[in-house]
Structures are given as structure tokens and as C-alpha cells.
């Protein structure tokens, strides 16, 4: 049996990806589908068409659920229809929002919204679906962290706080769940060309200073994250727990 068929294969697995509509979430969804997983696409806008089409092109399968992750209070109840129908093997907490305003004036409502979507809902998702995984003694959780899980960023204190929290939560859950056969890890994307970073790329000065610091000499593409996601979703990473895998073209070492 070769690795291609066995080690990195996700055939027969069900993977739930939040924020699957565009960018990194879409690329990871398509990557997992290409490795054989059935996809549960979660988003809050009813326009998942592009991701769905890409999966169909690969002869992959999916089902879409519209859930507002900022509604943390009702999240457990809103997840119930998924849990009733599926046993999730792979959970990818990708959905995230960013709000830019200098720390001195950072709007508290926006702070709360960022924390709700980026970390509070992630904890609920991990808990709810993690319980299913612990019961069957098998599961893979991948949280999408950020370079701002390590660094401070500028004008995005809520985002930075939420992403540091993601790294901490990932290790905390790993410490408790690794011995139950559930691996909890994170991927920290570098500067990736997506909607969330459009403002940076449109700012000529910021764009140049970022690009000059990336050893790889280019912005990342969402597709650059698919390999790491398949690795952490598959048997190939069974002894990897509580790790934050950085995919950043070398940024953190510069």
C-alpha cells in the first residue's frame, strides 16, 4: 500500500470547514476533498457556489450549512442538525474576521465581534465536535492561527488577541485530548493573498515592506495551505499535537 493511497488519504472521512466560501477556507476545503474527504461547508452567506463547483469538478461530495458564527450563544443549537446527521472526523476552524483601527480608539463592539467569531465560536466548535471525537477515540482538529499568534501586528489588537488565544487553546486542548486519539493543531498562514489582506496589498508602502521581508519573495496563495491541511488532517500527523505549523514563506525567521 503506498502513501498516496493510504497515509495521506482522507477517503471515508467527513471534514467540516468553517468560512469555506472564499480564500483559505475554500482552498483547504478543495484540498481535503481532493484527498477524498466528504465536505461539510459552513458559511454565513448563501453563496458557496464557487467552492461547491470546485469540489464537484474533482468528483468530490459536500453538503452546505449556513451558520452565523458570531452568534455564539446559539451556536451549539445551530450545530445540532450537522451532529444529528454526521460524525465529524476532521474539523477546520478557519472562519475569521479582522477589524482595523488604532488600539487607542479600537471600537469595543468590534473587539467583541472579532473575539466572538475568531475565538469564542472556535472554542464552542472544538468542544461540541471534540466530544464526538473523544467518544470514538479519533479525530483531527485544525485551527487557523496567524502570524499574529506570535507577533503584535499594527492597528489590529482584537485580531492579535484572538489569534494568540487560538494558539493557546490549541495547546490546551491537545494536552487533554491527545491521549484520547484526538489531535488538535493549528496552521499559521503568513501573508496570504485573500480578502482579509486586500487593504494591505492596496497600500503601496505596506505592500512593499511586507514583500521585502518574505524570504520566499512572494505573497502566499491560499492553495499554499492545502498541503499542510491534508498533512494535519491525515494519519501522517498522528504524533503531532498542540503544534502551530507556520506556512509563511519564511517570514517568522527573518
Amino acid at each position, binding site marked *: 500500500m503506498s502513501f498516496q493511497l493510504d497515509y495521506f*488519504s482522507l477517503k471515508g472521512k467527513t471534514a467540516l470547514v468553517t468560512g469555506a466560501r472564499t480564500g483559505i477556507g475554500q482552498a483547504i476545503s478543495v484540498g481535503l476533498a481532493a484527498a477524498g474527504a466528504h465536505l461539510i461547508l459552513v458559511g454565513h452567506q448563501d453563496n458557496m457556489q464557487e467552492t461547491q463547483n470546485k469540489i464537484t469538478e474533482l468528483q468530490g461530495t459536500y453538503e452546505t450549512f449556513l451558520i452565523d458564527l458570531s452568534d455564539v450563544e446559539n451556536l451549539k443549537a445551530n450545530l445540532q442538525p450537522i451532529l444529528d446527521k454526521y460524525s465529524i472526523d476532521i474539523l477546520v476552524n478557519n472562519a475569521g474576521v479582522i477589524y482595523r483601527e488604532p488600539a487607542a480608539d479600537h471600537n469595543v463592539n468590534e473587539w467583541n465581534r472579532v473575539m466572538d467569531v475568531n475565538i469564542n465560536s472556535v472554542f464552542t466548535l472544538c468542544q461540541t465536535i471534540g466530544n464526538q471525537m473523544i467518544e470514538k477515540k479519533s479525530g483531527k482538529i485544525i485551527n487557523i492561527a496567524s502570524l499574529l499568534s506570535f507577533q503584535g501586528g499594527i492597528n489590529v489588537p482584537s485580531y492579535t488577541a484572538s489569534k494568540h488565544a487560538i494558539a493557546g487553546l490549541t495547546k490546551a486542548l491537545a494536552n487533554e485530548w491527545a491521549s484520547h486519539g484526538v489531535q488538535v493543531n493549528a496552521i499559521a498562514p503568513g501573508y496570504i493573498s485573500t480578502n482579509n489582506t486586500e487593504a494591505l496589498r492596496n497600500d503601496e508602502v505596506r505592500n512593499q515592506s511586507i514583500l521585502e521581508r518574505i524570504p520566499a519573495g512572494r505573497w502566499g496563495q491560499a492553495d499554499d495551505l492545502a*498541503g499542510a491541511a491534508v498533512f494535519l488532517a491525515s494519519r501522517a500527523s498522528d504524533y503531532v499535537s498542540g503544534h502551530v505549523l507556520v506556512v509563511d*514563506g519564511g517570514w*517568522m525567521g527573518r
Partner: protein
Amino acid sequence: MHQLFNLTGKNAVVTGGSRGLGKEIALGLAEAGANVAIISRKESPEVVKELEQFGVKAVSIAFDIGNISMHKELLNIIEENLGKVDILVNNAGVQKRHPAVEFPQEDWNYVMNVNANAVFSLCQTFGKPMLERGYGKIVNVASLLSFQGGFTVPAYAASKGAVMQFTKSLANEWASKGVNVNCVAPGYMATEMNEALIHDEVRSRQILERIPAGRWGTGKDMQGAVIFLASSASDYVHGFTIAIDGGWLGR
């Protein structure tokens, strides 16, 4: 997608590939389709046979990597026997245990020479033709002691710290030229190198209690991460160290 991890037609070199983690790494790369040269102090025809079972070309070369002045010669031999090298896995390493206060200079020099100096020289020697071709994957085997201090192994900790750091230095220079340089950091693995720990009842218990996964790692546990870093699945990963430690570092 599976294509992302496919190494068919690539040529890989694994130092210390005749036993322990290195052997499992070599087998993993062969299973993923790569031709493999294993470097070890003694020739290992039996490992070559195991590698060949995956339908790839395999060679065993007897060479002491501590012999730094001969690294260019080693490259020539491998290129003659296998072809251009696409993947270099610097796995070979040595260990010496003494309390720091009485650590012999000779042992310090030995550990630093094999674990750090030789690895840097191999990166340099094998990296040069990779840079010329605009393609290459280098995977250095770091350690938990790239992050922590260990106990009565100061030379090992120093050497593994060095490996993780110069991996970033090389990545900073080579990433834009198509050469990926990264590390894997194995946790506590049930290998020959750790026999002293495994047989020490107290240390063995203490270690196990701290591993969230609840077990020592094995050579097989290394394969997935090394294939990931050796394949195009990791093309945007540079200067990074993947810990394969059952969660140890987060505990």
C-alpha cells in the same frame, strides 16, 4: 491532491539512514516514490533491499559525516550513483551524556562537529547545486532540545539549537531561489539513542507523564512530516521546525 505528496522520480539522501529514525525516514521517502541514498558509517545492504521493495533505486554509502573535508567527494559519489540530489535529510546525530560541570571538551567537540558543523557543511555542499537548478528540499533533524535545555546533554542541546537557527538563516537566503530549508523536531522517541532514558525507571516515567499523547514516539511517526517537507505540499514553508512530539512542547 495526492500528487502534492508524490516523490516519484526525486532523488533523496538520508544521513544516518541505516537505523533508528533515519531508517524509517528513508523507508517513508521510498514509499512515497523517491530514490534514496543512505549514508552511514557502515554499509547497509539489508536496508537497501528493504528500500528496493518499493520499486525505487537505493544505494548505501559508508561515510562518516564528521569527515567534513570530504563532503564534496561524498556529493560526487552520490551524483554518480543516484544522480542530482533533490532532497537532503540531515538526520545523523550523536549524543554524549555528562553533567555540565565535568563535560569533557573532547566530547563537546565531537557532538558539535557531527550534529552542527557537519550538518551546516552538508547543507552548503548539497545546497549549492540545488540553488543552481532552482530546486531543492532540505530537512534537518532538530530536536526538542532546539527549544529546551535537556539534562546532562549540554553539547547536544547546543548543537540542536544551532541546527534550528542556521536553518532559518539558510531559508532567509535560499527561499526565493526555490530551495526550501526546514526542520523536524522529534520528541521522545523509542530509539537506540534514548535507551539510557528508557531503561532509567524514574526518567522514563517522568517523560511519559509529560507526553500528552501518552506514548513514546516511533520512527514511523516521523515519516509523514518528512514527506510533507520533502514534497511540493510544503512549497511555501521555509525556515520552520515541525515538532513531532505527541504534544510535549505545549505541556
